[in-house]
């Protein structure tokens, strides 16, 4: 666990400074752990692998959107666990399951692996994107899906570069809301 904490925290710090490779490695590493965490938690409620994958993706999106709230003075494991647990309780509340059954946990419980990466969630990113307003969809499409630079996206969508950044962030938030609403109950 200590190596995991050290490795993941190093990735997190590099990722916060804008390094895409570190960010990808971080989200990939965390998603494997979140999968194991949600599978074991949801098993108690008779929920399956696909719902666990939905939750993994909700949590990954939340970690991405809220990464500015990580305080490097604290262990990364505790921060990730707090988000994972918050999303689990939110999910159970939304799907009207009792939350009194969610036991007290150690933060380490979020650090076991599950590398079954072939499971698909119930979300379709491209379909969800169609429900975003065009001023958000256009820069997300350009920057996040086609890998264009912010400057190119600004030209393509005829908005300013800062508007590209703001609209990407707002668009991802809107996607997170759509995903939470989509979850079958």
């Amino acid at each position, binding site marked *: 666990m200590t190596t995991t904490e050290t490795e993941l925290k190093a990735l997190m710090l590099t990722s916060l400074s804008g390094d895409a490779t570190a*960010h990808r490695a971080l989200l990939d590493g965390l998603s494997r752990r979140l*999968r194991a965490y949600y599978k074991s938690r949801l098993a108690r409620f008779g929920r399956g692998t696909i719902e666990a*994958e939905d939750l993994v993706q909700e949590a*990954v999106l939340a970690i991405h959107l809220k990464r*500015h709230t990580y305080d490097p003075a604290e262990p990364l494991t505790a*921060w990730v666990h707090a988000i994972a647990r918050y999303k689990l309780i939110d999910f159970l509340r939304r799907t009207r399951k009792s939350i009194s059954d969610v036991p007290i946990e150690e933060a380490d419980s979020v650090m076991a692996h599950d590398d079954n990466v072939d499971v*698909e969630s119930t979300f379709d990113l491209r379909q969800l994107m169609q429900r975003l307003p065009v001023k958000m969809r256009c820069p997300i499409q350009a920057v*996040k899906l086609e890998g*264009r630079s*912010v400057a190119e996206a600004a030209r393509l969508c005829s908005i300013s570069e800062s508007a590209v950044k703001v609209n990407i962030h707002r668009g991802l938030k809107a996607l997170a809301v759509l995903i939470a609403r989509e979850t079958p109950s």
Partner: protein
Amino acid sequence: MKTEDLVAFLSTNTEPVDRRATTRKLSLALAAGIAVALVIAPVALGVRPDLITARALVFLVVKLAFAIAIVAGAWIYLVRLARPGGEQKVSSFPIAVPFLAIVLLAAIGLWFEPTSHWDKMILGDQWLECLLSIPTIAIVPFAGAIWAMRQAAPTNLVRAGAFAGLAGGAVSAIGYTLHCTDDSLPFIAVWYGGTIVLCTLAGAALGPRLLRW
């Protein structure tokens, strides 16, 4: 969608992240709230006419010290509660200190006065106005604190909402001190302390609805 596709999508062209944003936005929200409260209260209710007399100034300082201590405490708590898991690192007791202090001072004040004066000391002239004004003005700073918390990631929404309400009530009280002519410690304890507690309870009730993410 596979999770690795989502990860690839999110990791394409990432931007550096401003880690101080949470603290900065909370500070900004409270500072703006104080500025607004200091304008609304005098404009809507008027400044007390005897503001520069010695007695009025002494009580102004007491009221301000009480309200500012709470705002400062609430700010510290909000900064912690804004982060996932932050609620596990804070005990709520220290924030009760300004309230206990004012209640203690009020009790001492009453002790030295004959009981026939107690009514006047506790109710003052304008208890109803105080009861209505502080929570009403508090809506603005409360909204600011909620705005800042929504950009962050609180995981205990009841507590985060309660502290946003506490900050809102105390910020509002800072503005109201410029108008309020009731100068007695029991009045401050009951009507300032009480309305700020009321704002805290309202914040706790609204937190889960307003702060969910």
